[in-house]
């Protein structure tokens, strides 16, 4: 049993924190979000230079050889300042789908461009009716000769400026079946794609994608036909841990910023932080953050230990982070008073981000249900 960060992780966290302290103050972030892509290409290049994009990939693949704890350490720092660069979608989520692909040719083509940051892949899986169930795929893939014809619609695909999409499509099985799902790499410039950009309220630029008879070469399929579900489930579980690490970073920022504000803002001749009712509410914010941080450690251990309960632990983490993330952000807004409800203060942006994190891959209720379905047989 060991929950401490390694020396390398501490150094990594420090270097991330230092960069963000210099480059991600609220005003700086506001300018970044206003970029056409919704993030700073310059920062992305810096992430690459600093080696952050290599973290979760094995040394054999040209990476740093980090694990979910290393990625989470970075993501937690990102959460503290609400980094908008597509690290999670491109490196943690799509990057891992490629890294664990059984299609070695494809992997060796794609991997270097992911690690260098030159290409940005994004996982296109959600559909209008899927209710965030990973196995719900109605997009079709029909084999014709050496290629597949894909038809369907994907929603809320992160990073509207991605260079490639990894599209989940079904060649067999019914709409909720775990078997029959394949993953196809699609160039974002493919003219058969109809891409509609949606600016999300957390500052991210996502897109909805439509396609009919989109022709993809068999060589661009990540696994054997119909075999992709276990890969998706494994990668998404790990990616959710990293996403929750971001949320824990944001929650940490919120309780600290609220306590700091309460210690300076005066009303009735005293700091509002001296009002006991507010103190106790801030303690609840702190305690909820610590509970979530504990679940983050738990889920990381479960993954690193190869525990059989890893999916349960991830579901619990996502459920609690979703619930408490919103709750803490709502409290932070309330305790900031009028300042909390303006776009001028960062607080509201944390609320928006935590609401979106709750929504990604299913909200608190859905993951609580997922947990209880696994636990109460």
């Amino acid at each position, binding site marked *: 049993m060991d929950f401490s960060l390694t020396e390398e992780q501490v150094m990594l966290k420090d270097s991330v924190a230092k960069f963000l302290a210099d480059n991600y103050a609220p005003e700086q972030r506001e300018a970044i979000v206003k970029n056409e892509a919704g993030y700073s290409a310059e920062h992305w290049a810096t992430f690459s230079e600093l080696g952050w994009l290599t973290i979760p990939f094995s040394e054999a693949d040209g990476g740093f050889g980090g694990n979910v704890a290393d990625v989470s350490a970075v993501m937690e720092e990102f959460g503290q300042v609400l980094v908008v660069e597509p690290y999670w979608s491109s490196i943690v989520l799509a990057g891992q789908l490629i890294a664990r692909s059984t299609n070695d040719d494809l992997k060796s083509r794609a991997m270097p461009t992911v690690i260098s940051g030159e290409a940005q892949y994004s996982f296109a899986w959600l559909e*209008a009716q899927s209710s965030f169930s990973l196995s719900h795929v109605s997009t079709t893939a029909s084999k014709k000769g050496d290629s597949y014809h894909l038809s369907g619609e994907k929603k809320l695909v992160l990073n509207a400026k991605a260079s490639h999409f990894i599209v989940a499509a079904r060649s067999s099985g019914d*709409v909720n079946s775990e078997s029959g799902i394949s993953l196809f790499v699609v160039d974002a410039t493919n003219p058969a794609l109809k891409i509609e950009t*949606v600016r999300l*309220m957390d500052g991210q630029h996502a897109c909805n994608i439509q396609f009919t008879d989109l022709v993809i070469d068999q060589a661009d399929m990540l696994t054997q036909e119909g075999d992709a579900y276990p890969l998706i489930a494994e990668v998404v579980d790990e990616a959710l841990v990293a996403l929750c690490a971001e949320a824990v970073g944001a929650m940490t920022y919120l309780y600290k910023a609220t306590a700091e504000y309460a210690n300076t803002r005066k*009303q009735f001749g005293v700091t*509002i932080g001296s009002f006991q009712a507010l103190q106790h509410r801030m303690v609840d914010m702190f305690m909820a953050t610590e509970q979530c941080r504990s679940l983050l450690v738990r889920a990381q251990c479960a993954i690193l230990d190869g525990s059989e309960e890893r999916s349960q632990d991830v579901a619990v983490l996502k459920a609690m982070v979703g619930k408490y993330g919103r709750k803490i952000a709502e409290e932070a807004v309330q305790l900031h008073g009028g300042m909390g409800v303006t776009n001028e203060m960062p607080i509201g942006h944390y609320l928006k981000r935590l609401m979106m994190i709750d*929504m990604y891959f299913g*909200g608190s209720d859905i993951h609580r249900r997922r947990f209880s379905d696994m636990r109460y047989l």
Partner: protein
Amino acid sequence: MHAKFSPEELAFQEEVRGFMRDNFTPDLAARIHHPKTFRDASVEWQKLLDGKGWAANGWPVEHGGTGWSATQKYIYTTELAAAGAPDVVPMGIKMVAPVLYSYGSEEQKARFLPITKSSDIWWCQGYSEPGAGSDLAALQTRAVRDGDDYIIDGTKIWTTFAQYADWIFCLVRTDNTGKPQQGISFLLIDMKSPGITVSPIISVDDEHHLNEVNFENVRVPVANRIGDENEGWTYAKALLTYERTALSGVGYCKRKLTHIRQLASQVSASGSRLIDDSDFRGRLADVEMEVMALEFLELRVLSAIDSGGAPGMESSLLKLKGTEMQQAVQSLQWDVAAGFGGISPDADDELWESDGNKARREYMFGRACTIFGGSNEVQRNIIAKFALGLQAR
């Protein structure tokens, strides 16, 4: 003990329903809910209500009120909400008018009440300041006497719809000695006066409701003061009580719950309905039960006012529970509707009224309702003191 309506009351209900059907048209509804057309549509709507004699229904009869019983007020509010129609913009009719008719001079009443009723003047409220939020009495905007005028200097903040306002009613400091509550005066100020600057504050729903209003050497006739100098706090307190009674929002909650039930009852492509999901059903029931209680809490208060009681601590209770329930309803609405439409603040005109966008902006701006109009923390302090007799330190 009964909640049944008399035949007269039932007839009144029919009358209100008919009026809503005929006058609150889909076109007007669309315009009143869109920020670009909101101002003019609100004026139009209030003029329609005023034409019927209902705009200022809470006022004393001699000033154009309706003299409705608590039951009638309840019926009116319920039907308004059921039709999805907003109540009148409150700053004139509900906030400044009670102060005007209670404490204003005859000249002030004659000058301002009719145009307030007919919506020919748009009011805003100059109340909070950067250093005076929950602790309102700490306000520092100065009014220095200069002949028949006051010279005003200072900053008001969180001023809703100041960008549309013709006049602002303000609390200003006319005396710095004594307790903070003393030395405050209540002024009416023409927004066209030289020296007033209005700067927008964009709120978390990405919209422009709020403003900062700056006063630099603004000259205001002493004749625009309500009541006595340094007595403004007394008038303001009364106003606050009225404001809070207007804030329970039961009608809003009920309309939203109906909407949420409808959305949740839609059959999805996979043949399931959210309303059959046990978790959602339980959460919806929890909120509905609270709102059912709140509805009768409000009726009990209205009924007590009808029997001669004045709104006091009860208005704090209604504000507190009412705003909590509004937020609970907004959270439910978000959970039902946010899915794929509510997540973007870039909705074009067509999408403005989409379920998702409504869910996003109402949830977001709804965060403000427990902060403004006397924060819920302050309401709890008031209730602790007046209902429970608990001593402050």
